[in-house]
């Protein structure tokens, strides 16, 4: 087999796994958009906020320590514990549910029935508010995130030796595949399967779809909009946490994490704003497309195509298939 072909395979594989991470962020967008018609610009920041909260709780950081110390004149930065990852994740989930409640009660409850653009602007405000809050609570330095299940079985870092040796035996060239990417793929697959099952086969899932479709009708069959919205924001917060863990473990918990949300936009345009499978497939296409394009065309145009490839692809899609690959076809009886 030619070297180029083998390289291309490796690049594709890496692209697929990068795509999974994009898809994880896009998923959060789709959930909220489907249930409330809100395009949540703050989804990326929610992932950042979740990751920072997780690290903070894990390391026993005192929230708002700078503020507290400045006011009281103390030097109180750490509680002095290192918390087990499971417990820390559970606590972070509680924080994200609290955030969902706060967002619903303080912001969106007052904006019911407003134009979509107003709701969108509110989420931009929310994004900056959350970013500031994260900074104030946990500080702005870059943190490393390591999630461990038991004592020393942690989220695996580094390259996967098995794949390396298998591919070396077959092709005479070992593929570089990140262990973390493989884990992320498995986690994402489980998450998506769980979400789809929840929305298709449970009472609350059906209520979520009902609210997404028609508010008045949902009320008339006894569904509380407030409850569903808090539920949806909580689930989106949970998805943000998962995305935050994966991205944080990969590249450190830092403020640039919130920018990954921008990469989710072309993913959504490809997959459609209303489709969970669409978010996954869109993410994969962008991930693979980006890497393969860089590999094949990149050298001819001086590289750095990864920065713009996704957006150009999304533009082309907007022209030919505005509802995305899996978006709901707008059914209109005349």
């Amino acid at each position: 087999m030619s070297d180029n072909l083998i390289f291309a395979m490796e690049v594709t594989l890496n692209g697929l796994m990068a795509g999974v991470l994009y898809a994880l962020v896009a998923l959060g967008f789709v959930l909220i958009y489907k249930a409330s018609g809100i395009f949540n610009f703050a989804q990326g920041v929610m992932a950042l906020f979740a990751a920072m909260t997780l690290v903070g709780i894990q390391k026993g950081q005192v929230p708002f320590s700078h503020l507290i110390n400045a006011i009281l004149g103390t030097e109180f930065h750490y509680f002095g514990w290192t918390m087990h990852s499971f417990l820390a994740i559970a606590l972070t989930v509680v924080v994200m549910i609290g955030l969902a409640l706060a967002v619903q009660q303080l912001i969106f409850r007052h904006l019911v029935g407003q134009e979509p653009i107003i709701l969108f602007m509110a989420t931009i405000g929310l994004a900056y508010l959350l970013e500031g809050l994260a900074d104030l609570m946990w500080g702005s330095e870059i943190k490393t995130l390591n999630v461990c299940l038991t004592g020393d079985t942690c989220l695996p870092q580094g390259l996967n030796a098995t794949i390396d040796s298998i591919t070396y035996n077959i092709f005479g060239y070992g593929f570089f595949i990140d262990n973390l990417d493989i884990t992320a793929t498995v986690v994402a697959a489980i998450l998506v399967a769980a979400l789809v099952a929840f929305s298709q086969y449970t009472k609350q899932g059906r209520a979520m779809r009902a609210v997404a479709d028609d508010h008045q009708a949902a009320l008339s069959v006894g569904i509380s909009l407030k409850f569903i919205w808090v539920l949806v924001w909580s689930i989106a917060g949970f998805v943000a946490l998962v995305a935050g863990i994966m991205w944080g473990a990969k590249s450190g918990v830092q403020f640039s994490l919130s920018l990954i949300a921008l990469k989710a936009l072309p993913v959504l345009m490809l997959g459609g704003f209303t489709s969970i499978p669409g978010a996954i497939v869109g993410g994969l296409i962008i991930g693979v497309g980006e890497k393969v394009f860089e590999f094949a065309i990149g050298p001819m145009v001086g590289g750095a195509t990864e920065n713009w490839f996704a957006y150009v692809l999304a533009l082309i899609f907007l022209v030919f298939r505005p509802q995305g690959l899996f978006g709901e076809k707008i059914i209109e009886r005349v």
Partner: protein
Amino acid sequence: MKDTTEGYVTADGRQIGGVLMEMKNITLQFGGVKAITDISFDIREGEIRAIIGPNGAGKSSMLNVISGFYVPTVGEVWFHGKKRPQMKPYQVAQQGIARTFQNIALFKGMSTLDNIMTGRMTMMNTNLVTQAMWWGKAQREESEHREKVEKIIDFLEIQAIRKTPVGRLPYGLQKRVELGRALAAEPKLLLLDEPMAGMNVEEKEDMSRFILDVNDEFGTTIALIEHDMGVVMDLSDRVVVMDYGKKIGDGTPDEVRNNQEVIDAYLGVEHD
């Protein structure tokens, strides 16, 4: 007007029971505009009660007051002999009042089956965690409800469109699915907002038959708004007539038909 305090027997021999719902001096005001002015009437158990009136008479507003979408400015709503506190529409639905809408409010992206399943929302008891884990109880509950829904689908003769997204269905069938969703809640009181609006004669006949059958077989109390006078007179036991937000008549179809005020409102009066 016939005295109905103790319940009565209809011409076709159905026993009508005591008061299920009573509206007491309802006034509804939007800013300076009065949509409803001091209206009182009652709905009795087992009865088909119609609210009629020309366009803009306040009929839909009245239905929205009953179903909790509007809060009356003045007046009380009594249900099961108790004064109803101010409630959100979803709480009213949980009390056993189901409704349909004039302009059809279905979940267009969902199948007929799923739409009707949402109607059973108020009757499902398992909590969020059990649901999410899909434990035995939740699964059993789901299939029990599914059975009830299939019965309604049979009853309304819509087996053929069970899996079709309702957005694709013709208007008449959508109306029928919406009725099915309301029925799925096994309501104590069923509110129908112009169930026959925009239908052709054949569809109207079908819908009339379903309404009568629902009342007859399940004993469901029905309050409906309708424009088509002929249909109303055939279907209903008692009729409230509204005009410009006021009640101008209340009684059996025959009484209402011979009421001078009602005739004036519908046919117009000569002005001199």
